[in-house]
């Protein structure tokens, strides 16, 4: 039963792909409208170097933005819990950044950093969207440390550093890891959106490959780039889920109950 449940997504995927392939062939749908999966694979294999480089570029920007979001989000969350005044002053602006659609910010940012620096715009935009889940979750986690344990640390005269390092950060870890899973996907979205908006041919990531293929009505190549983007997102999520599992499996209820 357990093996069947694990295989279920793959079985469903194979069925859908087979139905897609069969349906496209049976109905003779033109490839520029909906290419069959075999055509997508062929497009992928036709130019693996270009698509591979684009994948690497998008991955690099995404990981850089993600790393900056984690470092900045955790650092600011610590500052927020240390200084309620700072939290009051900055939090509304963090929310403004979060609720403003990244698509709306992108053109402005491109003007500021220059169209020749799409990579920098990508990095900044990806950071903006990836930052807030880290900040919000870590702040919540730091504040969620057990009240009894806080009393215990006070009773033993723990320093602020000891409280942070030995109590608050471990308490915040499940929250931070949950935020990282959201943030990883958002970093990828931010990186893609910036390149879409730039649309000037100066980009070299997967998003630009999609725009470029769209302009040429090369739909199979669009799908190939899209598939790589999806795989990248899935890989990011899988890695972060693994990290979460390894970090929490011995002690946290969210992971400890899993086989």
């Amino acid at each position, binding site marked *: 039963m357990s093996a069947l449940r694990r295989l279920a997504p793959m079985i469903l995927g194979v069925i859908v792909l087979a139905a897609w392939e069969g349906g496209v062939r049976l109905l003779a749908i033109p490839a520029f409208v909906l290419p069959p999966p075999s055509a997508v694979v062929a497009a992928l294999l036709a130019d693996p170097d270009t698509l591979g480089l684009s994948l690497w570029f998008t991955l690099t920007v995404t990981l850089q933005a993600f790393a900056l979001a984690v470092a900045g989000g955790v650092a600011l969350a610590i500052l927020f819990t240390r200084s309620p005044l700072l939290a009051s002053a900055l939090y509304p602006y963090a929310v403004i950044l979060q609720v403003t659609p990244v698509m709306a910010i992108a053109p402005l940012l491109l003007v500021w950093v220059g169209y020749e620096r799409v990579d920098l715009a990508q990095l900044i935009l990806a950071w903006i969207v990836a930052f807030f889940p880290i900040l919000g979750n870590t702040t919540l986690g730091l504040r969620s440390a*057990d009240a*009894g*344990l806080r*009393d*215990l*640390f*006070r*009773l*033993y*005269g*723990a320093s602020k550093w*000891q409280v942070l390092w*030995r*109590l608050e950060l*471990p308490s915040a*870890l499940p929250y931070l890891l949950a935020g990282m899973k959201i943030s990883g996907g958002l970093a990828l979205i931010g990186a893609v959106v910036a390149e879409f908006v730039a649309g000037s041919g100066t980009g070299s990531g997967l998003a630009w490959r999609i725009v470029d293929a769209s302009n040429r009505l090369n739909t199979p190549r669009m799908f190939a780039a899209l598939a790589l983007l999806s795989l990248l997102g899935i890989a990011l999520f899988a890695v972060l889920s693994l990290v979460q599992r390894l970090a929490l499996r*011995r*002690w*946290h*209820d969210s992971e*400890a109950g899993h086989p």
Partner: protein
Amino acid sequence: MGQGPAPSLETPFLELRGISKRYPNGTLALTDISMTVGEGEFLAIVGASGCGKSTILRHVAGLVTPSAGDIRWSRAPAAGGIGMVFQEPTLMPWARIQDNVRLPLDLAKVPRAAADARVTALLAQVGLADFAQAYPRELSGGMKMRASIARALVTRPRLLLMDEPFAALDEITRQKLNDDLLALWGEQRFTVLFVTHSVYEGVYLASRAIVMAPRPGRIHADIPLDLPYPRDEALRTDARYAAACRQVSLALADAMRSPSHPSGETAA
């Protein structure tokens, strides 16, 4: 492990003088709490929920500042001089049992080797030697509480504050832990303030019972429990134990009937 004789009050260890506590919302939690605790004494504070028992402990621990009154010590406790056990085990779920027990020593920057030796000895004393590497979630409720007690004792405190530590445990585990606690107390002679809502538990353990009245929390009766140490299962069927329980129960019932202070509910 033996239990020594009950100490006398001739050596006052700490004195609460006219402690009152009013919270910012106006609730008067405690009023005019005055009592003396002898060195090495095992004192039970008995009362219904919400009568301020835990608040007294928090004052003694220095976690709460009194609105009025003060606490005097014969010798002010040094860092780690007070151990505390809460109603919940309050263990760090991400840390192994040995790391949880070592926490107070780590916070005091005790060298690791010395700390580990102390932790190993204490875990053996509370029957958790085989569970040093376990995580709290892998232990039963009683075992977690043993770990919590070990942590409270790891600094060799002069005063142990226990806030209904066994309230959530089954009766058999509770009685076993009562006996183990008495054995540790008999060996190490720390002073104990033990909060409980169980008259039977308080009488079994303590050499004196403070009975609290609610709203606002105040001392209703101070009853010496003239039962011999060491105490064991035989005491639970002893007529003197039954009589002491009856005395404390009657005082508790009387405390519950005593009129509430009007300012105990809201701001004056």
